[in-house]
């Protein structure tokens, strides 16, 4: 058997490292042929998703190389690159990927020998590590998904669309983007404009918020329709406009295919009591992965996780945490990446079954929804009771007293689509809120099943309109006079914070309001 030859992707800055590689060539300095250089104008041009994509595509190692600090042709692009590689490394390390596989190095033009040596060293080290497991598990399936448009029309009842546009009248996206209409999407598919339909960026604008189903007279399951058509689009390599460059989606795909043991519980301290024998699982979700990515928003979604654990501990529950649970697959499913979704679902159901879990508690509505509705639909059955943390706590409140401090604040509550319209849970979060003495709950104009989505879903097509939607919702929240906007979806929080981070709002309406997760609010109030 031939010796393993690692493949290395080098992102080389045009002015230093690429030139250094040229010098290595001019001087005939030999190095192993394992490297493939991609020329970029500046290392600051290398996005996190390019690095993760290289890993996903089977590269054994990635090197981002640029000018020495102070030498950047663009003043500080190399320093930006450094920050980004550090961020990616945090994530890949959490995924369990060896840190040798993602590197950053400054190589100046004259340093042809250093370039060659760097490559030699890297090849040696990677040889020791062995091939990247993503070489094998790389997604190569180009085969068309089994469902075709006609089936989708029938399955989701979209065929029975009456073209009445009631969906459009309630669709929050259509409200802000007048060129958007669920009905039109269906019509284009029905007309057989397959190519246009799957390429239509509007297809990726749907939030899957299920507002349309409130009004649809023929029960068309539009979000499901969109989900399926997106799967077709995904097969045709159409992804809409993924936010954050698609890095989060890429990480999900890596996670789905990864045989590595994750290092995802690094945040867990002794403060929180967990048990390996419990038959109650607390599903941590993506929070550990979100935090490095959303650092720029000064946001820590792990606060939610910790708060939930604190509440559970307070109620005498010491849940099990699975060190190797994976993403629920929600975003993969909703962006059409069915394969990734199925891999994740298979993994999660297997490890949960093996752990003998009887009950799973979620603090993320997306995970809850996906486990509850999508897993069974795709044939991943779990014999567990599933509960949102608010349901669990509300259920306990009858038997057990929650000792809560007074918290004299006026708050309003954002119903996350996944928890509200998808699962019909409106009461338990409110019960929980009102259990805190002193809390005054002021409802927004649109609440419960009519609640407005936070504006973005599955980190795709985060555009001008989704921003306006967020602004609109925040204004509604402000209009209640509340000091805090409470939600129980980490993504709602991310999206709201992002909207408030906008410089653009300086001249716009005042939308600044404290956004807080329900669990955090309750945990803080615990005595």
């Amino acid at each position, binding site marked *: 058997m*031939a010796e393993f030859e690692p*493949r290395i*992707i080098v992102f080389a800055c045009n002015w230093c490292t*690429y030139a250094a*590689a*040229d010098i*290595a*060539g001019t001087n*005939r*300095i*030999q190095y*192993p*042929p394992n490297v*493939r*250089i*991609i*020329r*970029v*104008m*500046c290392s*600051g*041009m*290398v*996005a996190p*998703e*390019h690095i993760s*994509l*290289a*890993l*996903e*595509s*089977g*590269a054994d190692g990635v090197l981002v190389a640029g000018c020495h600090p102070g030498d950047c042709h*663009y*003043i500080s*692009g190399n320093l*930006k690159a450094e920050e*980004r590689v550090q961020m990616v490394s945090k994530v890949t390390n959490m995924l369990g990927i060896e840190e040798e596989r993602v590197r950053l190095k400054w190589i100046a033009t004259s340093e042809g020998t250093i370039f*060659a040596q760097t490559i030699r060293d890297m090849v040696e080290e990677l040889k020791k590590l062995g091939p990247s497991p993503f*070489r094998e598990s790389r997604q190569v399936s180009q085969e068309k998904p089994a469902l075709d448009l006609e089936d989708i029309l029938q399955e989701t009842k979209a065929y029975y669309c009456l073209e009445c546009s009631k969906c459009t009248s309630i669709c929050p996206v259509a409200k802000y983007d007048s060129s958007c209409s669920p009905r039109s999407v269906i019509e284009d598919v029905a007309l057989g404009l397959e190519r246009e339909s799957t390429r239509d960026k509007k297809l990726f604008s749907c939030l899957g918020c299920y507002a349309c189903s409130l009004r649809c007279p023929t029960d068309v399951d539009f979000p499901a329709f969109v989900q399926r058509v997106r799967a077709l689009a995904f097969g045709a390599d159409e992804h809409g*406009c*993924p*936010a*954050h*460059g*698609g890095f989060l989606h890429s990480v999900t795909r890596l996670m789905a295919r990864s045989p590595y043991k994750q290092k995802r519980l690094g945040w867990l301290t002794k403060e929180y009591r967990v048990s390996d024998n419990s038959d109650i699982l607390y599903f941590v979700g993506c929070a550990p992965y979100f935090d490095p990515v959303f650092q720029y928003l000064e946001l820590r979604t792990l606060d939610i996780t910790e708060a939930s654990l604190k509440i559970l501990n307070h109620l005498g529950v010491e849940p099990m945490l699975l060190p190797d649970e994976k993403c629920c697959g929600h975003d993969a499913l909703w962006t059409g990446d069915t394969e990734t979704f199925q891999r994740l679902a298979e993994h999660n159901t297997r490890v949960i079954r093996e752990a003998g879990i009887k009950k799973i508690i979620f603090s993320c509505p997306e995970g809850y929804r996906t486990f509850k509705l999508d897993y069974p639909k795709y044939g991943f059955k779990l014999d567990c009771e599933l509960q949102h943390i608010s349901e669990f706590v509300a259920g306990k409140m009858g038997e057990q007293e929650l000792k809560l401090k007074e918290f004299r604040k006026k708050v309003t509550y954002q119903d996350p689509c996944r928890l509200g319209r998808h699962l019909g849970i409106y009461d338990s979060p409110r019960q929980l809120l009102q259990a805190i003495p002193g809390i005054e709950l002021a409802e927004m104009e649109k609440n419960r099943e009519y609640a407005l989505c936070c504006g973005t879903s599955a980190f795709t097509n*985060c*555009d*001008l309109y989704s*921003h*306006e939607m967020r602004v609109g919702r925040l204004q509604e929240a402000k209009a209640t006079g509340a000091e805090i906007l409470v939600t129980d979806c980490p993504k709602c929080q991310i999206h709201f914070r*992002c*909207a408030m*981070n*906008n*410089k*653009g*709002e300086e*001249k*716009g309406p005042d939308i600044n309001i404290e956004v807080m997760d329900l669990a955090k609010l309750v945990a803080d109030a615990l005595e």
Partner: protein
Amino acid sequence: MENEKKVGVYICHCGLNIAGTVDVAELAKYAATLPNVVISRDYRYMCSDPGQDLIKNDIKELGLNRVVVASCSPRMHELTFRKACQSAGLNPYLYEQANIREHCSWVHADKKQGTKKAKDLVRAAVQRVCYHEPLEVKEIPVNPNTLVVGGGIAGIEAALKLANGGHKVYLVEKEPSIGGHMIQLDTTFPTLDCSECIMTPKMSEVGHHPNIELLAYSEVEEVSGSVGNFKVKVKKKARYVDEGKCIGCGICEQKCPWKVPSEFEMGLGKRVAIYIPFAQAIPNVATIDKDHCVYIQSGGKKCGACIKFCEAGAIDFDQTDQIIELEVGAIILATGYDLLDPSQIPQYGYGRYDNVITALEFERMTCAAGPSSGKIQLKDGRVPQSAAIIHCVGSRDKNYREYCSKICCMYALKHAHHLREKINADVYEMYIDMRCTGDGYEEFYERVSAEGVVFIKGKVAEVTDRAITEEEKGKLVVVAEDTLLGRLVRIPVDMVILCPAMIPRADAGEVARMFSITQKATGFFLERHAKLEPQVSAMDGIFLAGCCQCPKDIPDSVSHGRAAAAAALEIIDRGSVVTEAAIACVDKTLCHGCGICEDICEFRAAKVILKGGRMISTVNEALCKGCGVCAVACPSGAMSIKHFTRDELSTMVKALAPVENG
């Protein structure tokens, strides 16, 4: 179909340079099998004329709309092949080069491996070239006028070079006269020429030059626009003297009763409230210092002597500050430096002891035209018997400035020479290292050493008047460690001359902001490249001259000034500036106007503006360099870099990362 991609692939043998390690025939055959490739050829030297003709003919005859050449580094021949494409009517940006020489044939010996890698590189290039979009290089006409800010030697040189080249120059000087620090100097090292003698002809040339519009006693208030087309607002401060009428006769100075310390004389002499700063001032007109003019301060009730005696009738108390708007194509900043105030370093006693003075004060003292008519004297009028010159006052000092101020060693030697020559005083040079690196500098050091100056290598710990020996009584004692001898020395002297650090102008930060340029950690203005482009700021069209970039001696300042002028001439004479084609652009439907791009852009090219009722990012095409830092930071993907879009880079990654079949 308009959108159909037709790619031509050309494999260069580069003699045996490539063909020796890469099987070019097989590579060409392989390339022909790739999607969208309509023709694939190999040729001995693609960069030769016949090689280029292959491409041109195929574009015309086969209707190619994309071209890939696999040859040497694009840093070598990208431009060659782009031009070839262009001459055949294809947009030059629809071209991609695969580097199979420097990155393949030259660094790998195994032909099989080399061929395999070359295939990958060609495949990636073919896939990527399909994503290329035609780009246009925009030419923006350049306003041929230049603004020079600062009328010291660097600014004067720059202005003169440009003006002599036949271009209009606006020279803005904040003081009433140009001349800067150099006109304050007595002599210049190492030649000991008289500074005034070499400076005044230049100043006068500026004053009379038909192409130079001198705006003295003026300050830049606002700068907008970009290279080729800056708009500058200059505030011309009220002199209360009509520059057109004043003949510089100086009668007003004689009649004005209100005396204040002269800035030009470093406070060693006095001037009156209406003054011409020094005899050779350009423009040679009086200026009224409104803070000290009693007429102004009393609201016109008192004094008014100057009005009475001015025969030219030039006094005009109704003058107000004027804003002058200029349009220029290039800007040269020659704002100079300040000296560190040595009173910040209390142990040296400046400000406490009368006879601790700065080197610049000493310059005025030795100058024949100075307040003491060139007499070196102590405060009480005595002639000093001995003097210590302390180097590195605040320079090379972690507590103050880490850098070396470059010129102090040399002027300290000059001062030592004058002390020896004029009054035969004992001179002690207290230095850390002697740095005499210029032309004739070391020789000057030798000469001064030979004149009996005592050199003590050691950093001065303290200057004190507390005598511990009789000998020290009535003297200033310089306490230092002589590091060569390794012992503490106490040197009693009559006079201590401090060589303070050269520091950025107090308003350097403000100026940097106004001109959208950057400062270094030291506070001096940042050049684009320390070695290759020391006269160019990060902002296109704004150049640096003289000590605003870093400490310099006169010859360096002069060269720097001329270099800046040459850089400005390059733009002016070309008549237009070409914008980068591969720059950032904003997808309007995706942009939220979050402003992350604006914060991250070093070139201030991205800006969030209010447009159609919403905040949206825009890219100033003249400023953007296409580095892509903003595109990566953009959360929604609204920002992208042409020619290096996410799709293009992802395509490359997807083409190169997988190892196909082992």
